[in-house]
């Protein structure tokens, strides 16, 4: 089966088109190749989106490949044909920032998300290889991926399709496994190995901007690795002559708050500015004097790369070169009316509306500066195909409910999507309570649920998988609800910070488009936020109290009863003569006493 390249631009953003075109140029070839580019985009609310993208091609066998050997060995050992690994922190605010970058295909849900197509001849074998893969990746990326066990693994049916080129024969042998760790922190130790996979290791090129202190200070950030096989001779018959390479797309996306990033230079701890420096809303009835309602975003603040990231780009990575194509390293998606001043290390290439691109030179620092813009000049926003949010309903320690609100903002187009939930075993949904309905639909409206795949949970062995394909008409809101029961865990199954609650993985929503052959393909992905489920939690010191108290009572009761049963009370006058043993003991005591006396006399 020939599938389109994973880099095919599915979005409508012009800037993405051009970037993706540059990336697409890094097609398969005899040699390994590498390209990198950075997209900067101003977002409303004085935020800047920085999207780093690194594409490297290579093979397993080539020792001089740009494709990192450490990862290639892991993929080989676990027979993984396609891998997607995401580290994400924060929430993409679609209402403010519009449609997610790269159509949401690169970012995962909060925490760590991993899915892979593993070659295996049976489910058991696939599970074993999946375990191998998780453990190896946990070592490579310093993350607790080894915690993805059978209870956190699902096998989605409709949500994911392989992005790479796999022959039909191979596809039949591939197993899709998916695991999430919503609780997993993402920090510098994950970025370090990520950068080490890059050919320039963060020393030159756009990756020199990547710094944990800035990345983990972002409002939203995502690091992702997608490894797919890419074969040459697309569309032709499959023969042994075709050359396949592995393509690795590493993406780091972050939304930086300009004000916060720039303030950090002076003082880390935020302090309110003096009232003279605040822009107040004069329309408030209490305005004037010492009362102020601060106005938001009266201007687009000035920023520069070195100001935001703490340093300029240190030249271009000399390996980022594709034969025959002029590389484009940095693009800024900024309104045309807003000036951009670039330093000497780069040449400007103007590309289309609201997009300016720069080609960097080797060994020369590069910086761009955007001056203050007042009044603010926002870019037109693209609405995502679907807005999604999810929350808990209900109360108490025994039951609960989940409600997801899915809104189709389009005025003329219905949207098809798959709603996927991966729930831990201790959250047990009741499928009969599942309902999906439009908020204001006429009774004659056809059902919005088209197809449901469900795998019930088994205690301590696997979690629930719920996959629902739905169709929401234009400008309508669907509400999905279901109830669940909370399991009571064993004492030792609680984590050390049990009172914090248990993180429930984000729901994954894959917006589908119908292909010519009637199958569906994911074109856009949305993740809801994760949820925090509070389970009935015992007082952990209580068992000790109970054990101690019970033991005391037991000891007292047993001791006194045993005493009553065994001890025979007799009066002194009732005792007869001593037995044989007693007489012997008496004699021995006498002898010992005499010897002792004699010894003392000698000493004296």
């Amino acid at each position, binding site marked *: 089966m020939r599938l389109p390249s994973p880099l095919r631009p599915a979005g409508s953003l012009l800037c993405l088109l051009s970037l993706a075109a540059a990336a697409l140029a890094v097609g398969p070839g005899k040699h390994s190749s590498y390209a990198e580019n950075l997209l900067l985009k101003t977002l409303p609310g004085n935020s800047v989106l920085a999207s780093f993208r690194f594409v490297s091609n290579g093979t397993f066998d080539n020792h001089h490949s740009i494709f990192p050997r450490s990862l290639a060995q892991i993929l080989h050992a676990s027979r993984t044909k396609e891998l997607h690994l995401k580290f994400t922190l924060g929430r993409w605010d679609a209402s403010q920032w519009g449609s997610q970058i790269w159509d949401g295909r690169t970012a995962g849900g909060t925490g760590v998300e991993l899915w892979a197509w593993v070659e295996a001849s049976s489910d058991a074998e696939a599970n074993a290889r999946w375990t191998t893969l998780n*453990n190896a990746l946990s070592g490579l990326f310093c993350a607790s991926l080894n915690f993805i066990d059978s209870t956190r693994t699902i096998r989605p049916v409709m949500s994911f399709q392989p992005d790479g080129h796999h022959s039909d024969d191979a596809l039949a042998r591939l197993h899709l496994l998916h695991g999430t760790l919503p609780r997993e922190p993402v920090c510098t130790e994950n970025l370090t190995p990520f950068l080490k996979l890059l050919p320039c290791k963060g020393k030159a090129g756009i990756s020199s901007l990547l710094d944990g202190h800035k990345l983990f200070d972002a409002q939203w950030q995502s690091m992702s690795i997608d490894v797919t096989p890419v074969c040459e001779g697309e569309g032709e018959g499959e023969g042994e002559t075709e050359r396949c390479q592995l393509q690795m797309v590493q993406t780091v996306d972050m939304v930086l708050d300009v004000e916060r990033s720039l303030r950090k230079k002076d003082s880390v701890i935020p302090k309110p500015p003096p009232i003279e420096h605040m822009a107040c809303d004069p329309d408030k009835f209490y305005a004037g004097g010492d009362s102020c309602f601060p106005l938001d975003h009266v201007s687009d603040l000035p920023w520069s790369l070195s100001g935001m990231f703490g340093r300029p780009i240190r030249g271009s990575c000399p390996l980022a070169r594709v034969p025959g194509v002029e590389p484009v390293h940095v693009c800024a998606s900024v309104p045309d009316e807003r000036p951009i001043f670039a330093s000497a290390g780069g040449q400007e290439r103007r590309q289309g509306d609201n997009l300016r691109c720069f080609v960097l030179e080797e060994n020369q620092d590069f910086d761009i500066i955007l001056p203050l813009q007042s009044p603010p000049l926002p870019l037109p926003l693209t609405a995502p195909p679907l807005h999604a949010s999810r929350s808990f309903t209900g109360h108490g320690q025994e039951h609960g409910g989940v409600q997801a609100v899915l809104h189709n903002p389009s005025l003329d187009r219905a949207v098809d999507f798959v709603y996927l939930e991966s729930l831990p075993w201790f959250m047990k949904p009741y499928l009969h309570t599942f309902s999906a309905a439009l908020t204001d639909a006429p009774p004659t409206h056809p059902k919005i649920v088209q197809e449901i795949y469900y795998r019930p949970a088994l205690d301590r062995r696997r979690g629930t998988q719920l996959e629902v394909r739905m169709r929401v008409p234009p400008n309508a809101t669907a509400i999905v609800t279901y109830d669940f029961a909370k399991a009571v865990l064993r004492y030792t199954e609680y984590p*050390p910070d049990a009172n914090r609650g248990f993180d429930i993985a984000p729901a994954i929503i894959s917006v589908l488009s119908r292909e010519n052959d009637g199958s569906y393909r994911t074109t856009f992905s949305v993740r809801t936020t994760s949820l925090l489920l509070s389970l009935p939690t015992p007082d952990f010191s209580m068992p000790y109290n109970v054990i101690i108290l019970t033991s005391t009572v037991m000891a007292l009761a047993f001791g006194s009863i045993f005493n009553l049963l065994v001890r025979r009370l007799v009066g002194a006058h009732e005792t007869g003569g001593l037995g044989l043993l007693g007489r012997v003991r008496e004699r021995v005591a006498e002898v010992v006493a005499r010897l002792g006396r004699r010894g003392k006399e000698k000493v004296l």
Partner: protein
Amino acid sequence: MKPTRLLLPLALLSCALAQHTSNWAVLVSTSRFWFNYRHLANVLSMYRTVKRLGIPDSQIILMLSDDIACNPRNAFPGTVYNNADRALDLYGDNIEVDYRGYEVTVENFIRLLTDRVEPDTPRSKRLLTDDRSNIFIYMTGHGGNEFLKFQDAEEISAFDIADAFEQMWEKKRYHEMLFMIDTCQANTMYSKFYSPNILATGSSKLDESSYSHHADNDVGVAVIDRYTYYNLEFLENNVQTASSKDTMKDLFDSYDMEKIHSTPGVRTDLFRRDLKDVLITDFFGNVQNVEVDGEDGSWQEEILELSRLAINFTMPRRNGGCKSAGQEEKTGPAVRNVGAVRVEEKEGWSKNAMGVGALLACGIAWVAGSTLL
């Protein structure tokens, strides 16, 4: 080859005196929660020190029990400081944490020491030492008389560690060991050791607390413990390079009860060498003596053999022959057993009728039973 064989006992004799060929460090912080920031700072300070003196990340096992650097409470994302002057960011740009969060458990720690791990465990999570390795073990957290609390949920006892070390000795997993611990009543933790070649030091004796040094008001909590602070002060001032000739005796002599506010202890009875002869870099640095034997040109073969070993070790699955495995896979068709099943909603009255029928049958049976009896 033969002359080297003859020389072998001689070589062994020399190594028994004082030779190690690799340095490893196991750095463990066992406390969860933000207010235990200082324990993570302690352990990261030691991480920076051993890294500064040359032990590579691949030979450092760093166990961090909580996420402090990227904690939402941290006003300085991605950083951990051990001093209120905030001159040195311990987290830095290049850090590899091997065990983190919930992975830091007593079980994992003992498994790491004794190398009784799952077959899939990656190399970075294993202590791949041998009988020529010097190991520096540093632990910090909340402890008591003969125990150290892990993760606010469980504890390791002095006997557990002592037995784990004995097992390491029996398995020839270390040459010499330095055990350093900074907790309350720390000296009780090494009181049960009985294996040879262990040098142990702790921050406070029985019934003594171990105190924090100072707090940073912007971080909001204490940033380092006293014992670790003064250890670090000595190491920073005196052991500036890996070629430093300072000895463990110098380090132990620098301990000052006035400053530490507790009684640091040193246990030397298991250790065979005189502390005057033990360089600090024997444990904190990556300094080894190289022995060259068999200068008859066979080293090239040995290097080949070594590289072969390394390949087999890193890729055990390749060992059995990649081709045969591949062929075997090409045969049998994929057995697929999709976990999720399609749920269909059946409309119509047949199911309802069946349900009503079943209920009716039950009712009839009950009536019949009660009237007949």
